[in-house]
């Protein structure tokens, strides 16, 4: 009989080694990993149910500007009864970039997932959530605010809503995210005039008092589940409905052309359960389509995420 574990490992290695060329990035402002909208959710009627979990993950993102973003996240889920789960997620972010290396706590996500339908073949779950800007969105170099790519937080209060349908082999989900305020980022090219990095800085879009556009997402994922491992492949289109806007030093609000539209990511991942209580998950994202400009810094050529989940 074919050894399935080896096959699984081979597939995972393939995703690591083949993806970096022409890879594209994710443009997730947070909702893609919130509650019911998360990728690679477990689905089994037979497994022992554990209502609490903590997931520690490390994320590496490569940007178009050669910046490398490391994200360490603690994602805690607590079940309330059979149908409701509360999620609290806190990231810690490191950015290694040509301008500066930054780090700091990221934005706090709070979510509530509610199971609406659960039957033999599928379940439907609803998520409502928010993001709170506890991270810094105006880190600076030599007193000069840095572009959003270097910020550890987005700096906005967001509301998020979404719904997903999960079956044994498939997941489809859709969600909406909207920021409720402008952030306090102050990155403006003119501040960098005469600075040795001025030319580099001009490659980044100005994001002073940035108001991020409204996003909708749609996730489709095919999951192949085996006894204690699974792998999946999915598409994650995120469409920015409205353009981002910034406010100039002169107080003029401008829409940023090219900041709206589609960002499409191909996701390939897998997981291995050490037991019912713990397992690892790996997810790689490859950019297929990106928006022309990303003043919010949410553009990755390639992302790779590895996480350890402990349920209790």
């Amino acid at each position, binding site marked *: *009989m*074919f050894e*399935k574990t080896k*096959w699984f490992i081979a597939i995972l290695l393939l995703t690591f080694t083949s993806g970096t060329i022409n890879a594209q990035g994710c443009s997730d402002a947070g909702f893609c990993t919130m509650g019911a909208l998360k990728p690679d959710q477990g689905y089994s009627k*037979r*497994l*022992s149910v554990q209502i609490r979990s903590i997931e520690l993950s490390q994320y590496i993102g490569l940007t178009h500007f050669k910046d490398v973003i490391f994200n360490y996240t603690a994602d805690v889920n607590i079940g309330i009864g059979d149908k409701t789960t509360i999620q609290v997620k806190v990231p810690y972010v490191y950015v290694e970039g040509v301008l500066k290396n930054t780090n700091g706590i990221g934005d706090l996500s709070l979510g509530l997932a509610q199971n609406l339908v659960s039957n*033999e073949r599928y379940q439907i779950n609803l998520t409502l959530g928010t993001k709170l800007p506890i991270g810094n969105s105006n880190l600076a170099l030599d007193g000069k605010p840095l572009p959003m790519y270097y910020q550890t937080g987005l700096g906005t209060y967001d509301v998020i809503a979404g719904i997903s349908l999960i079956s*044994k082999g498939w997941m489809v989900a859709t969600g909406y995210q909207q920021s409720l305020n402008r952030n306090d980022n102050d990155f403006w090219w003119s501040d960098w005039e005469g600075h040795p990095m001025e030319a580099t800085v001009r490659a980044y879009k100005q994001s002073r008092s940035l108001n991020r556009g409204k996003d909708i997402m749609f996730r489709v994922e095919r999951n192949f*589940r*085996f*006894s*204690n491992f699974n792998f999946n492949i999915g598409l994650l289109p995120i469409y920015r409905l409205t353009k981002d806007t910034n406010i100039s030093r002169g107080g003029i609000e401008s829409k940023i052309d090219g900041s709206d539209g589609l960002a499409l990511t191909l996701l390939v991942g897998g997981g291995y*359960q050490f*037991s*019912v*209580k713990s397992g690892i998950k790996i997810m790689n994202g490859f950019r297929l389509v990106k928006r022309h400009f990303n003043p919010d810094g949410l553009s990755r050529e390639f992302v790779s995420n590895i996480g350890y989940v402990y349920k209790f």
Partner: protein
Amino acid sequence: MYINSKIRLLLIASLLLSLDGWSQDNSIKIADKLFSEGKYADAILKYKESSSTYQTQNQYINYAFVNLKIATSTIRLGRINEGLELSQNTLNYIESNNINDSRLLGKTYNVIGDGYLNLGRNDQALEYLLKSLEQYQLTGDTNTPDMAKCYNDLGIVYWNNGNNNLALQYHENALNIRSKLDEKNQSTEKADSYNNIGLIYSDYDFTKATDNFNKALNIYKKVLGQNHPKVSLCLNNLALVSDRQENYIQAQQYLNEVLNIWNNIFDGDHPNKAFTYLSIGRVNYHEKEYDLAIYNLEKALKSYLNLYGNKHPEVANTYNQLGAVLLAQGNFEEAIDSYQKAIYANLYDQESTDIYSNPELKNYYNADILLYSLQQKAKTLESLHYNKTLKMRELKYSLLTLELADQLVSRIRKIRLSEKDKLSLSEKASEIYEAGVQMCFEMSEMSINSKYYLEKAFDFAERSKSSTLLSAIQDTNAKQFSGIPSELLEKETNLKNDIAFYERKLAENSGDNQENMLRTKLLTLNGEYNNFIQELEKNYPKYYNLKFNENQISLTNLQKALDIQTAFVTHFITEERVYYFYCTRNKFKIYNTPKMEKFNNYVSGLRNAIKYDSREHFITAATDLYTQLFPGKISKDIKNLIIVPEGNLATIPFEVLLQKESEDNSFNNLPYLIKKYNISYDNSATLYAQRKKEIEAYQGETEDILLVAPINFNQEYYANTSSSLNDLPGSENEINEIKLLFKSKEHSTTVLSGGDATEINLKDQQLHKYKYLHFATHGMVDESKPELSRIFLRPTYNDKEDGSLYSGEIYNIDIHADLVCLSACQTGLGKISKGEGIIGLSRSLLYAGAENLIVSLWTVSDNSTSQLMIDFYNNHLYSNTYNTFSSALRKAKLKLISDEQFSKPYYWAPFILIGE
């Protein structure tokens, strides 16, 4: 003087001798009294005194008898090996002194058998007890306490190996003898019989069990006092029944009382005491007091280990119970370890290497306990996977363990002697198959090699279908092809006929006196039959090999057996799921769907809706059941459906299921399944494939038909039935028309109608020469006592041929017909037996040799039946396109559907075809 002196000396000597004899008798009496009071250690001392005296006096027989009493007392004290050695020594003594006393030999074998019984060596016990029985029978007096004791012990042995039916017969016969010998109702041996009968009932009839235990208890208390071991054992048994009835407080009360008695009687370890701790642990487990359960079970275990070492069925039993507690606590690895210990405690000569290893199936003490251990180990490994590790390894080993359990079932089936016990085994085994189907299906979903597991799921499902019928048919075929002389086969038929006759008479229950006679007779016949079969197996090895040759069909072979237009459909139904197996020549798929709520109500609702003519309910039930039972699409090429109905699905005709909702709800326009497919039924894939081969190779002696129709059913003829049987005037027309159809084809016909349709006339016919047997009559099915299911013919007023052809009689008639048609009421029904399907007339006819069978599922209308049957034979004999039985029957049904008068399913749907 000299003479006087001599006489005086002789007188003195004789007086001394008689005084010595008196003192000896007195010593034995005291010892017997001590023995009966349960004071075994004191009894041994007294017996030993007598033993020495007898030895000195060279009274060999008495010496041997007393030594046997010492051996028995030693066994009762729990020193079983020692007791067994003493009894073996006695046997050696008897043999070396050439003592030829059947009573003594019988007793000796009995004590040895008793010792082995206590050691858990059922096989050895049976061997010695049968020898004992043989010796007692040689004495010519079968109504002795010794004979009753031998019956009693044989009853226990058969109970231990799961032959409950036979065990009950032995105990009832022991009770019969003991009752005769006990005029004052003070016999503790009689109470022993009540106690043992209670134990057999405690598995399935709590009221009867309690009743028997109480009868025993009353006698024990009256004769032996409140604190005797037998009182204690009986209370322990009452506790077991209370526990099974979930009356835990009562059970605890009994067990506390028992424990007090044991503590007063026995210092240190004793099997009875250990058994009580085991019982307490079991009650604690049921009360979910797991820590307490473990505490008591460990006490029992420690005691058993001290007494028996780590190899004994009771040790296995205790480990099993511990495993159950640990599993309930979620300690999966420990539970597996405990079940593993239970498995190896049950094997004389194998040791476990790790918790995953499985043993070879050889040299086990108790197969039923081993089966339980294997089942529970498999279940716990599965739980370990789903609740903890998620590793495939656990599921793989769980599956291997289930497969081993399945092999064990096959072995147990070989030693099950009665049909009832075989059916009960099938019911027990169905739990293994259920676990197997479910696990294989789930493994198929989590494995890349899903086909492998789906085939295994098919194998498990197939094993759950009619294994007993299959082995019975295999047995018949084995006899036919193994060169057994015809006189022996005839002897067997006669024995089986006699057994069937007495079983039926017993089922009819004709009063106490006769009942005892019938029981004795039945026991003797069963003994004779079992010996006869053992001789056959010994003398005709080919028979043995053919009989026990595993011949279950594989999926691949089933697919090869199917033609391109035929789909084989079977269901496997659990508490919560319905598995649908769809198999064609090129495709195999399993669908696993949740069982709809009140599934059984839908099944019975469909029957009721047809019976009471409720169109709305019929349409709902027929549509919903179709959706449930056919979750997948049937390929376009398929024209024939062969269905193996599971459980109560065998009581409905699938022909009436509705494939979709219809706008036109008139009965003749509904989208019945029969409108698209020829439908026939079978008991299993293996039986289908076997029968298909036989049908294809069918070469009947003739093309003849035998038509049987009593027509008038005067109640006087059938005094022994409560049913009122109306006349069937339509049946006369039916057989006349069928006769004409056959005559026109130049086939020979034999008609037994009216007064000629007697049971004796039927049996006088050489039934095996007919290709067709057609019965237009009444039938009656007795679900509680399937042996009383019958076809009504005319009686001839003799004891044996009473006008009822009982299912037991049908089993023993020789049929070689291509088709047997029971144009009678409800002939397709019977007792639904889990893992076996319907036990009724159809089963007995298939066993008797019918290749195809048409039977009915409800009380039929005389006129529509007549028309259906005539059309059926007409199609079969004269149509080029509808000449197979299934197509001929379908066409006849479609004709009735299109006829306004008979378009309701009530008229056209009752008759189903089994076979083809």
